[in-house]
Every structure is written in C-alpha cells, then in structure tokens.
C-alpha cells in the first residue's frame, strides 16, 4: 500500500501532505503532553515491534501472502493519538531507509496507514467492545468471544478503509490528470479492495492472536485501557467518553476523505436521474422537503456527514437497546 513518488497527481499529493501535517501536528502535541520520558523507549520498542511483525508474512491463498499493517493493533494497545505518531515513525523509516513509499507521496501514505488505519481500527473496536463483550471469559482465554470479534473487526476495518482511501486517491489522481497520474477507478478500486478485504481477514486473525497473547503474558502493555481517568460530568464527561472519542476517530477519517469527493464529484446526473431524463420522466414535487442538504462546500458536507453518522449511530444504538430490553436478565 506504499505509494511511490511520481504516481499521484501533484494536487492530490499536496493535499495528502496538508492533511497529514494538520493531524500529525495535533497528534504530536497531544502525545507530547501524555508521554513521560520513561514511556519513550517503550513506545519506540512498540514501533520496532510493529515494524518487525510486518516481516511475518501470512498465507492468503492462491500462493500469495500478505503481511500485518499493525495500525489497529498499535492503536488498541496504546491509544490512537500515540499510534498515529508511532506509525508515522515506522513509515518514515520505511521511506527513508528502504525507499518504500515516496517523499512527495509520504503525506498520502501517512494519511492512509498512520492516520486512517489506527483511527478506524480503534474507533470500530471501541464502538463494538461495549456491545459485544458481554458474557464470561472462557477458562484459558484472555477475553470474551465478543471482545475478540471487536478487535478483529477493528483490524479488518482498518485495513479495508485504508486501502479504500488509497484506491480513491489513485482513482481521483487518474481522473483529474486525464490519465497522466494514478490508476483508473475500474482497476484500483476492485484490485485494492478485493485484495485487502482478504488481507484484512489475516490481519484480524493475527491482531486477535497477538492481543490475546500479550494480554495474557504482559497486560501492562495495553496502556489505552488503563492510563486515563474517566470524567463523568458535563461537556468534559461527554468528550472523555470512549464512544464519543471513537465516533470522532471515525469522523476524522471521513473528513480526510471528503476533499477527494469534492475534487472528483461530478455535476452530471446519477444513474436514476439519467434514466429518467432518457425516458422523458420529470421529477415530481416532493411531499416533504428536508431542511438539510448534502452541502455545496467542504464544511457543509462535513456537517451533513456528521449529522448523518450520528443519526444512524443513535438509531443503531436504540435498536440494540430495544433488543437487549426484550431479553431476560442474566
């Protein structure tokens, strides 16, 4: 997934650098406040551990192999903010020492693998964990089957969404440069998503396995679950709640992808509109008009996206609660 120099349209590469610079500056500032001097070697060792674990190839069938990316694992172990800094360090070493990923494309590589992957992995895991980690831990196991599923789902989502972002960047580069840069969407999207959907399964299995092993042997390595006090009152309480932070993590990934949508979006009719046009059928007046639209600029669309995400999440949580209320008490 490491994009080399010269493959991306300069506008998209520049956009990647801009997004990376903003998020990385925030992550470095926040990490600087949280990390004490004795934590630094431990985090460096985790970075090295992820780097080395990436050397372990696993079979995905058909004679091909994949390897761990580790963004979700890193974020689940130490939290997303430090994971962003740590994954940036890993990518810098790969780019500068092995030429794996370019300098002009470093911003995009970092957005995909050092920002989107940890944020999505941690966000999905944190959202699913309270819903699934009911029941008792089986003898000889370190967590419930539900919690293992949450870790696996986080790892799988981290790989898939990061690869989707990479595919979208390649496709938009191709579209806006009239074929001079990037890869056509018809190739990049199915190739990247198809391959990484399978690699993601391997990533999920290994992430669950590593988490189980480390929790059993050295649980103190999971700093994200123990290091922060929980505030329960007011705005601070809402902001410090894990669900709110997980929502924010997923929304940041969405906000990072949105500029690509604006660069790529077309004024043309969609499939149904085109068919209606061809058939000479006009769009009738709607019975109800929504006060919201998808928005004409970045912030309007971001607002619409956040609103939609929160609405869907609330409906989903409400349905879960109704279903749970129907069950007999344990």
């Amino acid at each position, binding site marked *: 997934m490491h994009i*080399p120099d010269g493959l991306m349209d*300069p506008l998209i590469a520049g956009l990647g650098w801009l997004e990376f610079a903003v998020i990385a500056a925030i992550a*470095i500032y926040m990490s600087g406040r949280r990390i004490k001097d004795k934590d630094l070697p431990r985090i460096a060792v985790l970075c090295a551990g992820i780097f080395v674990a990436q050397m372990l190839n696993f079979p995905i069938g058909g004679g091909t192999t994949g390897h761990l990316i580790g963004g979700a694992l890193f974020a689940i172990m130490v939290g997303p903010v430090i994971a962003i800094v740590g994954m940036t360090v890993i990518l*810098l070493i790969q780019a500068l020492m092995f030429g*794996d990923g370019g300098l002009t494309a470093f911003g995009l590589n970092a957005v995909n693998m050092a920002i989107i992957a940890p944020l999505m992995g941690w966000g999905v895991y944190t959202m699913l964990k309270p819903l699934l980690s009911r029941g008792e831990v089986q003898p000889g196991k370190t967590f419930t089957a539900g919690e293992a599923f949450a870790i696996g789902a986080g790892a799988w989502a981290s790989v898939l969404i990061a690869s989707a972002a990479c595919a979208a960047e390649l496709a938009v580069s191709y579209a806006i440069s009239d074929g*001079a840069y990037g890869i056509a969407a018809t190739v990049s999207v199915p190739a990247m998503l198809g391959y990484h959907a399978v690699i993601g399964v391997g990533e999920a*299995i290994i992430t669950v396995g590593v988490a189980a092993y480390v929790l059993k042997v050295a649980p103190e390595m999971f700093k994200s679950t123990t290091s922060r006090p929980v505030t329960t009152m007011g705005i601070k309480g809402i902001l410090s709640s894990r669900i709110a932070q997980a929502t924010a993590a997923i929304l940041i990934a969405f906000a990072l992808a949105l500029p690509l949508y604006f660069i790529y979006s077309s004024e043309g009719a969609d499939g149904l509109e085109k068919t209606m046009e061809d058939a000479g059928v006009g769009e009738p007046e709607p019975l109800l008009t929504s006060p919201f639209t998808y928005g004409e600029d970045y912030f309007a669309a971001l607002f619409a996206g956040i609103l939609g995400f929160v609405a869907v999440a609330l409906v989903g949580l409400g349905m879960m609660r109704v279903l749970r209320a129907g069950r007999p008490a344990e």
Partner: protein
Amino acid sequence: MIVAHVRGHHTRPEELDEHARASWLGKLDPRAKIVGAVVFAVATALLTRTDLILASLLLAVSFGAMSQVPYRHLVRMYLGALPFILMASVSVFLFSGLERGFDMWARTSSCVITLLVLASGTETYELFSGLRRLKVPKLVSTLLMLTYKYILILGDELARMKTARTARGFKVGRGLFDGRGFRIISYTAGMVFVRASARADNGYEGLRARGFRTDMRQMRTSRLKARDFAFMAWFACLSSLLVILQLGASQ
C-alpha cells in the same frame, strides 16, 4: 539477521550503512542530501512531458552510477519497489496508451532511484540527525533513533524465533483456514512484543544512565560546507530547469 519487510527483498540495515561509508555521498551533510532529494522528487513528480521525464530518469540513473553505491544493491532494492510501479504503469498503459504508461514507469522510477541512492548513501543515524536539524519535531526524531535501535535487536530475535519454529517442523500453511499456522504466527508476533517490552525497561535504565531526558541529545553539530551548498545548488538548478521547461511546454 533482520530483513527488509518490503516485498521480500533482503537487505540488512547495517548493509545500508556499509554502502554509505563507501560512497562520497556519505561525506555530505545529510540536510543537503535530504533537501536535494526532496526538490528533485517534487520537480520530477510535476513532469508530464516524455522527453523531460526521460531526462529526469537519466539524471537519477547517473546520480546512482556516480554515487559509488554498488549497482547490484540499488537494483535489488529497486526490484522490491517494481511490482507497485508496474501495476500503475500497466494500468495507465491499458487505459491511456503506451506513452502515458511509459511516462508513469519512468517518472516513478526516477523518484524511487533518487530516494534509494539517498537512503543507501547516508548512514542511518546521520539521516535521522539530518531530519532533526531540519526541524522535524523532537518527539518524532527521538522515536526514530530509538525505534531503529530496537528494530535491529528485535529483527535478530525474530530471526532466532523463526529458526526455532522451523526446527520444530513449522511450515507456513496454504491459506486463511490454516488455524494452527495463524496461531503460531500470532504468538510469534506476540512474543516479539513481550520481549520488546522487557527490553524497553532495561533500555530505559541504560538511557537514563547516559543522561537521557525525553530527548536524544544532538552529538553531531556540523555546519553546511561549500560542497553541501554546491550539491543542493546542483539539484535545485536541474530541478528548476526541468520544471521551467515543463511549464513552458504546457503554456
């Protein structure tokens, strides 16, 4: 022995430093090399004219040839990056024609070769020190230096674990349904983390004993010399020329 994780090509980091010591590039200030490589990569990424892209590729290959870094080493590392370059080039070739596909291959190769020469012609800690002096945040540069140190140690540990599991008859399975194989790979990775954690604690004591306080102190304080400015000026002139010709052609 540590191996580069990238697509299976085997390169020891120590080997990279050996080449840096053999090359005249190793004598240049790392800041000059980083700035030169970045300027050249940015300029090359902007090119769309085939003749200019070819000129850029020729410059990159000449830079590699003059660098005194063994060409076998550069070719081996380039081959590691080739699959992704080819995927992009072939895709562009199929959708936009031969010339565009060729441009993509040449442009990407030019940037990759320059970066590989930079990486091979600079000692690793010099490279990180250069980044530090180019105002990369302290947290990142300190983590870079510490991480690299631990990569060498853990890479050796992983190699030993791989040897041990091979001796016990372990073979990588054929697919995602090989549960036993995945369990062993997961536990191997888990063990890397656990051993890493133990080393971090010992490492911290050692660092404290050497005066470490949240920051790797800068031991190298060299100034840019005339040859460094000449190197940067050379890259800046060539890059500017390529961009000016490109912009002139597009108007």
